[in-house]
């Protein structure tokens, strides 16, 4: 196990490094500049700005500076918001995105699994139809449409909840609802189909024959195996949701880090692009690593060391 973890750790570092390098050359390959504006720009002013951010150096020098910054995890000042460092932006935005993401994941997991299990147990019954209709709606309605709709209803028409911003628990209800619906639907459908499969297995019949209580059969025997596919997608889902979602954060004016992924690219804000990319890929590979660990806990037949290629 320890050997495997060390090996995986090195793989993770290499993966992040490859992603970072690719991103660096891709972002410099796109035409455009962080100082492009519709207004005419003065040459001297432009030159001063480029010198200030080291963009007048040859690309290989910039790449060297960039690697140094990754190693020290200090990405320098943002070009768009020059009084703030990228580290400031990430350390301020990430906890908020993380908070929203955690609540969302918990809501999505709990409600998704319950819906899926209930639907599977009452296969082809009314509850199954209802649950799956909810799931289909959840998958097919984009969250930004749902967000605008629920703001209009809950905040404007009925005046029950605040429309936007991020300052009290009440402010979290609508964004969580908008954000959790999609993942909840995906989890519900996955749980349902794998539950259906598991429930026909011999060992479930065996458990029934032994006279175990239905609850015990479902939670102890069936669900544990049915959750494997859910765990598989959970890693990517977690990384995506925890690091913030551009659209939802924009609509609800949540000061998370989601917007930096999109806006930094539009602005060619190179330090922020590299900061968010390195940060996101680190989280992503780490989540995938956690998923592998979770596999072995859920299914003792999976041996991590063997998977590591020994």
């Amino acid at each position, binding site marked *: 196990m320890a050997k495997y973890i060390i090996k995986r750790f090195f793989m993770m570092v290499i993966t992040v490094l490859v992603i970072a390098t690719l991103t660096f050359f891709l972002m410099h390959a*796109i*035409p*455009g*500049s962080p*100082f*492009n*504006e*519709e*207004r*005419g*720009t*003065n040459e*001297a*002013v432009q030159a*001063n*700005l480029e*010198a200030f951010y080291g963009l007048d150096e040859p690309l290989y020098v910039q790449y060297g500076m960039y690697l140094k910054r990754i190693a020290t995890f200090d990405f320098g000042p943002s070009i*768009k*918001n*020059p*009084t*703030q460092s990228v580290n400031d932006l990430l350390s*301020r*935005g990430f906890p908020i995105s993380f908070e929203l993401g955690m609540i969302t994941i918990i809501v999505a997991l709990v409600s998704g699994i319950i819906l899926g299990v209930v639907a599977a147990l009452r296969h082809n019954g*009314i509850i199954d*139809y*209802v649950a799956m*209709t*909810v799931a289909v*709606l959840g998958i097919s309605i984009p969250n930004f449409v749902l967000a*605008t709709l*629920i*703001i*209009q209803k*809950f*905040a*404007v028409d009925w*005046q*029950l*909840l*605040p*429309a*936007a*911003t*991020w*300052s*009290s*628990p*009440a402010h979290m*209800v*609508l964004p969580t*609802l908008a954000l959790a619906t999609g993942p909840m639907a995906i989890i519900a459908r996955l749980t349902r189909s794998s539950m259906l499969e598991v429930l026909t297995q011999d060992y479930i019949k065996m458990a029934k024959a032994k006279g175990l209580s239905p609850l015990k059969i479902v939670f102890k025997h069936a669900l544990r195996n049915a959750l494997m596919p859910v765990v598989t997608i959970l890693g990517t889902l977690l990384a995506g949701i925890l690091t913030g979602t551009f659209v939802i954060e*924009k*609509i*609800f*004016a949540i*000061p998370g880090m989601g*917007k930096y992924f999109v806006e930094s690219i*539009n602005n*060619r804000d190179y330090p922020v692009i590299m900061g968010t990319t390195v940060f996101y890929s680190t989280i992503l590979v780490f989540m995938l690593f956690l998923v592998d660990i979770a596999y072995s806990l859920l299914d003792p037949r999976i041996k991590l060391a063997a998977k590591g290629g020994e």
Partner: protein
Amino acid sequence: MKKWGIFLFSIVMVLVLAACTANEEAGEEQENKDDSTQEEASAEKVLHMNNGTEPTSLDPSIGFNAASWNLLNNVMEGLTRLGEDDQPQPAIAEDWEVSEDGLEYTFNIREDANWSNGDPVTAGDFVYAWTYMLDPATASPAAFLGYFIEGAEEFNSGTGDASSLGLEAVDEKTFKVTLAGPTGFFLNVITNPSFFPINEAVATENPNWFAEADSFVSNGPFMIESWDHDSEIVMTKNEEYWDAETVQLDKVHWAMVNDVNTEYQMYQSGDLDVSEIPADLADQLIDGEDVHIWDQAGLYFFRFNVNMEPFQNQKIRQAFAKAVNQQEIVEFVTKNREEPAYGFVAPGFEDPNGNDFRETNGNLVEFNADEAKALLEEGMAEEGYSDLPTVTLSYSTSDSHRIIAETLQQMYSQNLGIDVELSNVESNVFLDEQRALKFQFSRSSFLHDYADPINALESFITDSSMNRTGWSNEQYDQLIADAKNEADEAARFELMYTAERLLLEEMPIFPLHFYNQVYLHNESVTGIVRHPVGYMDLKWADKTN
């Protein structure tokens, strides 16, 4: 049939469940909200505004855009301030003398002009701030505005030094500026936040004084009470401000909501006092009683590339300009009450006789389908075209640009019988390619950096970074150069009138509509001033409870 029943039932269930879960917590919030609004109502006048985003920077030399100016212009003040009539008024400077050749300005700073920490605002603070802005190491995007000052361009380009700048603190309250050339609108230029003073003592001790509320020192109508980055800035009235008795508001909350739909929904629910109009709702809302419209000095226009066929031909350029019905576009497409543009210089600039520039120079390009058709035929004959080369209209990716481009496409088909192709490009790439003259025919916009027609007209001198058409005309370059050196205002305006007529006769560009600023105001809000150039002002704003 049965399936439909289940479907309907399930939808009802979703709504009921959603409503239930949300309701429990909702009630509490409602109470809190009532409490806080009641508290505010009894004691203070609190305005709720939206800045859209975190300001780029509150360093006056760095924050060179509306998101920074909205805040800076209300917490700080320069020598002059734009009044409610959009003209520069005495501000931190009580009065000033101008030398006869128009090159030397001596400002007398108010005795009672103080910083929010109690320090007096001194001439030294201005010398410090302006030198800092022009220092190449600061990399201020606004530095070019200071090039009117003697020695500034050399210093900022790295060929001169700070000691040769035409800035002098004669004594603590007397500040003398020497200009590089006569600049009739200098008092207007220095209303821009990049010319605000900086408290030298504070900035020397803490170079990042502008980054947080605690260290920020103001000298304007308001000061910064708290700054929750990316979420909210709260301003309170600055009692140290020399004209504090004019200021009516006690507090201003600035949200940072970067979505117009949400902004409008917050306005509807009473969380904001002011909002923009979502583009989709312009139709329904633009005639409302809560709509306020101000001019904005700038315009939406199109550029021809005069180095690419068929736009090397002047008549073909004129034909393409005259085939566009500007009035119809503002009425039925943008629907935002803009003024159609029949010239390049926006309304609102007065010559020394008190006449508006735009009115005086008249309509220089107007829709006329027959004339356009005739011009196209003449132009094609001149070039020996039997078929017009393919024309592609490029625009930066955005819904509003697309709709306008499609309308133009249709107008060209109808009025000239030409099929124009459309192409959209990501906006940052678009600007690069437009500068590199890779487009044949493309959209553009211009917003004034300072309030004088020369700012708009100098865009089209040869090789200006704003030219982007390949157009070069010696006579035009000369007219602009002469206007910049002309000390007599009447003669200067005459030169600019001639230049604009020449520009629109040659037609390397054609104007579509002038911009405006459209806002919804809660009926209890009065006195917000939005100037055509740049910034808005809450000094005179009030809110009745």
